Structures are given as structure tokens and as C-alpha cells.
């Protein structure tokens, strides 16, 4: 797959975090990570329309660049371009691990063991997301990772790890080093905690020390 096309798909899926249901987002990212972009191209535009998720112009350009080459339907793609200002995220984030999480955080330990000093990986952080107005009992881990290559595949790999560890719809955000962070990710990073660091981009910290 053309790296630019793949990266466009990946960035589009990043921007859909918190806007599509988690169970769809992780699945679509898995498909991309496994190279099933043509399947994604046929399904994603229609899914956005069904869930009434409009794209802004930048996202629309990503969709055109990433999915049209793989056979996405022009009519559907065109219909996804919205004109209204993006609505505010319905989530808040916190770095504090909820009380209900076992004091032994197996997921963080496994992520550390997997990604520490890994060549293409930069910094790894996590945050806990909860819906506005709801309590911490529904908090969900958001894993934030910077990487310099193989982002879709790394996403799929980490998703599989977290699923086996019990998170059936994992939220794994593997961010390119040059990426204009959406509000969702900015807020998550601002309320995140350090997990581990790979070997890539030692000076590129997601959150200034």
C-alpha cells in the first residue's frame, strides 16, 4: 500500500476517535493495520453517514486521499463533508487510574514490556476517558503512543494485546510525529501519565517535562 495513502487512512481514523463508537473505530483500525484498506474504503464512508458523523475539510481530504484509491464510493464520500463547526467532545480525561482498576495494572506492564526501547516507538502515555457528567466507573483507558513508522500495524498489534487483556474495544492512538492534534488527543495528552518510551525520537516528548 502506498505509504501516503495508508497514512491518510490512519490519520482519518485517528480523527474519528470519540466520534464513532469505540467498537467500530478499533475494528476499522484493525482492518487498516492488516492491509484491508479496500474493505475499509467500502464500509467507512457509509458508516460515517449512518452515524451522522460529518467530516471537516481536512478530514474530507484525508478520506479522498486515503479511500478513493481503494474504491470508496464517490457519492458516499462526498456526502460526508459537513459544513457545521465541529461539536465539542463529550469526554473528559484524567491521568488518575480509576479505583476499580486492579492495583496491578497488567495492561500498562505488558505495554511497557512490549514497547520499551522499541526502535519505531517514541513516548507512550495513557489517560482515562470518561463521559462528561458520568462517574469514573465507566472510565476507559486511552493509550497514546508516538511512532515514526508502521503506525497502522503498531495500532493493530497494541489493540490485540489490550483485547486479550480484557479491553474488548481498545482505544489505541498511535500518533505520527508531525500531526496536528485534534482536541480529543490534546485533552487526553494534557491529562495523561507516562508509561514508557521507545527508542525513537528521544527528544520528542508528547508532553513537555
Amino acid at each position, binding site marked *: 500500500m502506498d505509504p501516503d495513502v495508508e497514512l491518510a487512512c490512519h490519520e482519518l481514523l485517528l480523527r474519528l476517535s470519540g466520534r464513532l463508537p469505540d*467498537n467500530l473505530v478499533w*475494528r476499522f483500525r*484493525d*482492518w487498516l493495520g*492488516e*492491509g*484491508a484498506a*479496500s*474493505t*475499509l474504503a*467500502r*464500509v467507512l464512508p*457509509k*458508516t460515517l453517514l*449512518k452515524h451522522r458523523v460529518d467530516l471537516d475539510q481536512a478530514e474530507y481530504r484525508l478520506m479522498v486521499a486515503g479511500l478513493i484509491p481503494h474504491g470508496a464510493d464517490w457519492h458516499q464520500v462526498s456526502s460526508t463533508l459537513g459544513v457545521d463547526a465541529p461539536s465539542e467532545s463529550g469526554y473528559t480525561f484524567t491521568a488518575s487510574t480509576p479505583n476499580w482498576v486492579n492495583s496491578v495494572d497488567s495492561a500498562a506492564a505488558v505495554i511497557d514490556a512490549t514497547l520499551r526501547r522499541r526502535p519505531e516507538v517514541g513516548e507512550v502515555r495513557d489517560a482515562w476517558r470518561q463521559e462528561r457528567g458520568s462517574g469514573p466507573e465507566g472510565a476507559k483507558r486511552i493509550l497514546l503512543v508516538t511512532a515514526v513508522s508502521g503506525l497502522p500495524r503498531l495500532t493493530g498489534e497494541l*489493540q*490485540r494485546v489490550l*483485547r*486479550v*487483556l*480484557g479491553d*474488548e*474495544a481498545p482505544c489505541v492512538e498511535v500518533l505520527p510525529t508531525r500531526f496536528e492534534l485534534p482536541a480529543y488527543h490534546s485533552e487526553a495528552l494534557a491529562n495523561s501519565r507516562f508509561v514508557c518510551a521507545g527508542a525513537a525520537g528521544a527528544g520528542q516528548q508528547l508532553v513537555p517535562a
Partner: protein
Amino acid sequence: MVDVHGSTGFSGDHDGFGVPLRLYNVLLGLAGRLDDSALSEARELVARSHLDDAAELTVGSLIAGRIPVRPSEQRELAQLLEMTRSEPALADQLTVVDDIAAAEHRFSRENEPDAGIGEALDRVLRVLPDLRSVHAVWRNTPAGSVPGPLPQRVVLVDIGPEAHPPAVAFRVADALRKAGIAAVVEVTGAGSERTSYHEGALSSGVPVWLAGPDTARADSVRAEPARSEPARTHVGPASVPAPPEPEPEPEPVRSAPPAPEPAPASSSSWTAEPPRSTSRSRGEGRRSRHSGRGQDADVPESSGGQLPAGGDQAEQGGQVVAFPQPSAEAEEDNRSAQTTEMSREEVAQLRAAIAQDKDKGMALASADLSADDLAQIPDLNLDDPQLADRDRKLLRELHAELAQRERAEAERLRSNGTGSNG
């Protein structure tokens, strides 16, 4: 592109099968091969009539996971994609293999795979029509390319022809989810046959609930008005023992008002443990064998006919299943499953339930025992088609054990001279 107009090779070629059921049956065939999340989500989409989404989720997951499918499955999926106005060309990307080796899965009934399920499904079992049985088992092996956590609880539901498999699968899964029980639900029955995966799971599964012979229709149960008097004993398929009452009927049960909701009073069934509080009385008729786990034997304090009436044994409802468990240790609480560790009172319950045919004489007449001490053990009827082979085996074992206990009891009493007056 895959020929979407040819025969799929599936038996019956789906004459009369609607697209939802065809889609559901494809998913059924993929159980153990596709990840459980995809199966559950696709089934919910089918039940909610989002057929295109279900077909695309299924095909997309198969493609991305490079999960092999048979040529007949590929054709069927291509047809379904077309019939749901999706893109049938997606099926061209499937990994097609003529001969797919059966996935080896390991199942286990250890560690209570049925814990909480009876309670969680209490209402579902009373509302949905034509449910036949519910079993639960742990699957210790991963499924699909993106498996979830292990072990995976599998809940197997057998249904009759009046039940709609996708609807049952969704409702059962939804009830379990709301109760905080993670499980994948496999519904099989008429028109949706089991695969070797389901057979393997069922052979290791723990029976949670079995319908009585006359409970094929839940609507017939619902149609009966709630009664203030204790409901009647229910028996399960064939001669599944359903002890009617362990003690003289507690008065509160008789005097309590009818259930406020259109609960199937006639479905009130037996549970070997004493009935629980009012809030649980809705579940009369179809009790989990774990419905009272961890609780003390409360004195019944509500209506709903939780305790069956003594000699009246009209069969209406499904019932709790009380089968011996291989991991019976540390099960000294008031569970109903311990036939090998039963108290005298529990044995009396089982005897009374089995002794439903009043026309048969007592086999142990020489021992002048009271009715509470002995009950006849009727012949087993193992021809009921609702019974799985495993259920029959367990029934035989249970029956044999009861008979042995009767003989031992009679022998003991004879030797003590306590019951002999002639």
C-alpha cells in the same frame, strides 16, 4: 467476481429462509473461527435489521484476519452482500480454502461457567418463545484473528421452531451484558443447526436451564393468569427431576397476592434451595441453579408460587437443572447442583419430584416409611428429543444414585427396625 446467482451448496438452498436467518446461519458456522466480538456485534446488527452492516462487518473481519472460508461460504456471503445492497465484490477478497480443518477448541465446565446466568436470564427465559435449554461453558482457546480475553464464556441456547435465532441471540446476549456477564451466545435449533464447535461446547457445558415438556411456548405460559396460590411443580424434559417441595408449604406463599406483572405463575418451578425474596419471585418457573448462590436459605416471604404445591404436579414450566458437577468440592452452600452431597431434605425433594406418577406403587413397601422418607422412582423417559446425550447420561446417573439411596435407606431402616411393623 464470485458468482452470486449459483447454488450456494448449503442444504436446502435456503428456500424460505429470510436474509436475516441466512446471515445468522453464516455467523453460526463461523463460531470459533471469527472473534467473538465480531460474532456478537454482527448478530445484534442482524437482530436489529441492519443487515448490510452485519454482512460487511462479517466479511471485513474475515478479510482482515485472513480467516479461511469454504467456497460455499464465500458464495453465500457474496449473495448476502448483494441482497443487503452491499458490495458483493468484497467477497472476492476472502481467503477461500476447499478443506478447512476444524478448529480445535478446548472447553471446560470448571469454575462455574453458569454463575449468575440463570438470574441474568430470568426475564428473557420467561418472555421469549420456544426456548428449550441453556447451557454454559468456558472456552479456553482463542477464536479469530483478534481474540478477546480468555477464558471466554460461551452460552448455548437451544430453541424450538417458534423462536427466531437472531432475536434470541441478541436478547440473551443483551441480558447477560446488562448483568455484567461477558459471554458469547450461540443459539441453535430448528433451521440453525449446530456445528462441531457447538457440539464440543455442549458436551462440556453445564446445563443452566431446561424447558419442561409443555413449555415449548412461552406465550402459553404467559397467557395464564397469575395465581395467588402456589404454582405447580414443573418438570423438565423427560424425567429430569424437579422436586416439588422440601417442606410443608410455607403459609406466606399461599396468602401472598398475585405477582403484579403478567408473570407466568404457572411457570413457577422448583429450586432445590429455598425460595428467595420477593424481588426474585418474578423468576418463578425458570430458575438458575445458582439463583441463590451465596445466600442463606431465606424463609419464603412472597408470592409467585416459588414453592410448588405438594401432590399436584401438572407440568407447565421450565426448571432449574440440578446436575452433579465434577468440581463439587467447596460447594457446601445452598446450591441445587449437588446431588452427590445432598442433604436429607434435598434428597426428599428430589424424590418427591421424581415421584410424579401417583399410579405407580412404592417399590419399597416393606419398609413402612413415611411419604417424606421415601418416594418411588419412576422409570426414566430418556426419549425426549429435547434431551442432549449428555443430559440423558446425567439423568441416568442421577436416577441410579437416587435408587441406590432408596435402597440404602430402606436397608438401614429395616436393620434398625424403625420402620417395620410387620
